[in-house]
């Protein structure tokens, strides 16, 4: 049995326009619900409604709170198949309060049915939903003018609203737009043409959905594979797993890895557990390359490297968090499989959902649309949403509450690397290293306050100095008293602290120096970020001293203050320390002396220098 063609659509529009009722009635009329569900619907309707009529919305409003209040709070998904087509419908809430749940449905759909109450006409919420649908990439619209039964099935009412829709849709790009007069409760033009509106000559809603063509024009697309994970079952096998976002790939094709720019040739391709010779958009693949190059989660494998690597862009966002958008605050940015720290640097304007006007704003509240500039801490592969859904769509996650604060699309790239290029210098890092007769690298100490980072780093630097090495030790407190004096101890400030230090270390490495850094650096993500800035010449040394021991030592008396609540956000007490899982060196300062710890590091470094 061949699987029928699938249409994913949503119903949206203002509250009480009858979205759930419309879909409920469609399922009921088309005999698409099971008998036990029908029975329970009839039973529930008797309890809920006064006149004993069937309340079709109860088929979709599945949450207790929804049934109690008679409203839709969150999106419901329903699956049905007619003789012509399979459908997934996301029935979304109409209340402004739950706009973000409506947007969840919109991000998944190809077509949007926007309901309008015939007695009310186009409302602000109608326009808001149409704009959000358009922003999320929907190009096919149906406007269902509902409750025609309450307006005596008047052609004039229909015509007036239809004209308003035409005027409004001039602002919104679309491929198809259809207006259908319906009655969701009475079933007019839901599955079959209404006898009450002979003046309407178009199709009823369900036949229209069965026949509309939403397939995208086939255009030549470049191959894009965002790497989800590295598959290493044994020493012989190293494969990169992900879902092909666009284009095709064959064994023997040359590929380029972004953002690093390294190149290789494809040796094997697997789709699931089957080895194949080529793969295409949508398939879950594992690919093996002809040589060992640095590829990890978040890298994007391409054939031609068409998408951009950048550090700043303009995006249109739907703000979804109860906490307002704050310029300068640090968020997690997710684009495809990349997750990087990002800051909203500037609000360009707020978008009036009703008129589409650009309004100046310095704060953005929940459910508002905004255009803003965002800059990222690490080089990120991105594209315009209009060119690539995969590399042009994003979410922002609050780093403290973990709320998904915003979703959005990239509308303009700024500062990407083909505008701003790294100035190449004649005296290179390699030349400097040769002159200084040493390899340059960064030794990154991490551990709790009082674990002995600075003590060991100090002793190590003395040893290296004695060996004739050129070194520099960057210490937490010293840096915070100087270049980072504007930063506090909030999570976002800690992230910025580490970012700046990593860049300083990198510059010193480029100057030929061996750099030792001694910072608590409690977050895994920040250390990873530091490593990505500094590069391969990076050694992570985990000073693994247990909290109890650090607290016993309490060299600076800080643990005591933290326990008394006099120092806030103190790592280990009321702020987390994420221990490294794969540190290059782990030191045990309880059982080994400072000099023994230094010996351990020197041994590792000599192996590296050879």
């Amino acid at each position, binding site marked *: 049995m061949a699987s029928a063609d699938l249409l994913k659509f949503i119903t949206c529009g203002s509250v009480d326009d009858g979205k759930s009722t419309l879909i409920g009635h469609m399922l009921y009329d088309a005999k698409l619900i*099971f008998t036990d569900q029908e029975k329970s619907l009839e039973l529930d309707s008797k309890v809920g409604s006064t006149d004993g009529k069937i309340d079709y919305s109860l088929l979709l409003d599945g949450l207790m709170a929804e049934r109690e209040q008679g409203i839709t709070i969150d999106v419901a998904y329903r699956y049905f198949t007619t003789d012509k087509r399979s459908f997934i419908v996301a029935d979304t809430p109409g209340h402004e309060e739950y706009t973000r749940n409506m947007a969840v449905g919109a991000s998944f759909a190809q077509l949007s049915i926007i309901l309008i109450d015939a007695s009310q006409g186009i409302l602000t919420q109608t326009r808001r939903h149409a704009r959000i649908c358009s922003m999320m990439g929907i190009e096919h619209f149906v406007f269902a003018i509902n409750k025609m039964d309450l307006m005596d099935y008047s052609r004039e009412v229909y015509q007036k609203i239809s004209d308003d829709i035409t005027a409004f849709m001039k602002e919104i790009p679309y491929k198809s737009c259809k207006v259908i007069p319906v009655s969701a409760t009475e079933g007019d033009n839901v599955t079959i043409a209404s006898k009450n509106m002979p003046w309407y000559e178009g199709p009823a809603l369900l036949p229209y959905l069965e026949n509309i063509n939403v397939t995208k024009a086939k255009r030549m697309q470049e191959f894009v594979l965002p790497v*989800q994970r590295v598959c290493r079952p044994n020493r012989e096998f190293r*494969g990169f797993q992900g879902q092909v976002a666009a284009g095709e790939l064959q064994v023997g094709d040359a590929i380029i890895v972004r953002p690093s720019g390294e190149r290789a040739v494809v040796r094997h391709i697997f789709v699931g557990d089957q080895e194949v010779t080529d793969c295409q958009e949508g398939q*879950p693949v594992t690919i093996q390359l002809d040589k060992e190059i640095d590829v990890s989660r978040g890298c994007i494998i391409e054939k031609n490297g068409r998408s951009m690597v950048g550090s700043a862009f303009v995006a249109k966002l739907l703000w979804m968090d109860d906490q307002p958008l704050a310029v300068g605050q640090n968020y997690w940015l997710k684009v495809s499989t990349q997750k990087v720290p990002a800051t909203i640097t500037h609000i360009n304007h707020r978008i009036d959902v009703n008129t589409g006007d650009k309004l100046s704003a310095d704060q953005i509240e929940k459910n508002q649309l905004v255009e803003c500039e965002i800059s990222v801490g690490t080089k990120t592969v991105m594209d315009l949403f209009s060119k690539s859904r995969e590399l042009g769509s994003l979410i922002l996650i609050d780093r403290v509450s*973990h709320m998904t604060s915003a*979703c959005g699309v990239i509308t303009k790239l700024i500062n990407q690397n083909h505008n701003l290029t790294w100035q190449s210098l004649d005296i290179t890092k390699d030349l400097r290293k040769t002159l200084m007769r040493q390899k340059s690298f960064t030794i990154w100490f991490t551990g709790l306050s009082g674990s002995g980072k600075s003590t060991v780093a100090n002793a190590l630097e003395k040893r290296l100095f004695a060996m004739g090495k050129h070194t520099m030790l960057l210490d937490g407190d010293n840096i915070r008293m100087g270049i980072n004096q504007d930063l506090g101890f909030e999570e976002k400030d800690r992230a910025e602290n580490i970012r700046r230090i990593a860049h300083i270390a990198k510059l010193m490495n480029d100057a030929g120096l061996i750099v030792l850094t001694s910072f608590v650096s409690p977050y895994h993500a920040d250390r990873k970020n530091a490593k990505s800035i500094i590069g391969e010449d990076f050694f992570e040394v985990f000073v693994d001293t247990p909290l109890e021991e650090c607290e016993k030592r309490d060299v600076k008396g800080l643990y005591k203050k933290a326990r008394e609540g006099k120092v806030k956000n103190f790592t280990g007490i009321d702020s987390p320390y994420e221990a490294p899982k794969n540190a290059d060196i782990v030191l045990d300062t309880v059982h080994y002396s400072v000099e023994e710890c230094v010996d351990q590091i020197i041994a590792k470094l000599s192996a590296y220098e050879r």
Partner: protein
Amino acid sequence: MDHLDKLEAEAIYIMREVAAECEKPVMLYSIGKDSSVMLHLAMKAFYPEKPPFPFLHVNTTWKFKEMISFRDETAKRLGIEMLEYINEEGVKNNINPFDHGAAYTDIMKTQALKQALDKYGFTAAFGGGRRDEEKSRAKERIFSFRDENHSWDPKNQRPEMWHLYNTEINKGEGIRVFPISNWTEKDIWQYIKRENIPIVSLYFAKERPVVYRDGNIIMVDDDRMKLREGEKVVMESVRFRTLGCYPLTGGVRSTATTLDEIIEETLMSLESERTSRIIDSDGGSSSMEKRKREGYF
């Protein structure tokens, strides 16, 4: 790519995201057809690597005997790590489906699951829930956040856009992940057939010893099943649409002994599969949501 290929690709994408982003995932394995599909997808998703997480079966001690032997054979055949968790406190107090009704489900399933997740410190748990099963499931996200008490807050779910999943949690919190959310019962059967996935033989019709009780056909799987007055064990050709604890799982009279016949019956069926689960109808039309809020899958 056809419809099933797309569903398969979506599930594999989700599983790989969890393996890459979540600290300590586990896959719940209930031995049923949906679990069999999930396991098959996991084997494909990470190939040639084995799934980089263990599987967990929460055993109420009242499962069909055939289910337990199938579970052990499957784990051995595929070389995967299969954990079993039983709420020993419940066993000690002789909590059973005959005497304790809804409390039985809570203690031996919901509480047991929460104890197991806490014991191993799992931060993400895959479940085989599908949105077409039940109306509160139809509302649930693919990545469904749980607080430190394992509770679901249906009124305040995290938005989930495109396939950009938010996996950030604090210590003690967790995520339930549903990779086959968008599959229907029909999709499951067609995929089992296409991929030739082994399933427990209870899904196929066979002469089995059963009693008729409260409008359900209950199989007498062992001698713990006490007959009520007037009840008689009869041999009937029955099969099961869903599998759970034998005293709570209603069979259907059927002669379907092949996948094609099962698919045919499923397509013709007038009733949803959950009608054969007695526990789901316990407590009215919102009982599933109540249990989910309390930590049930």
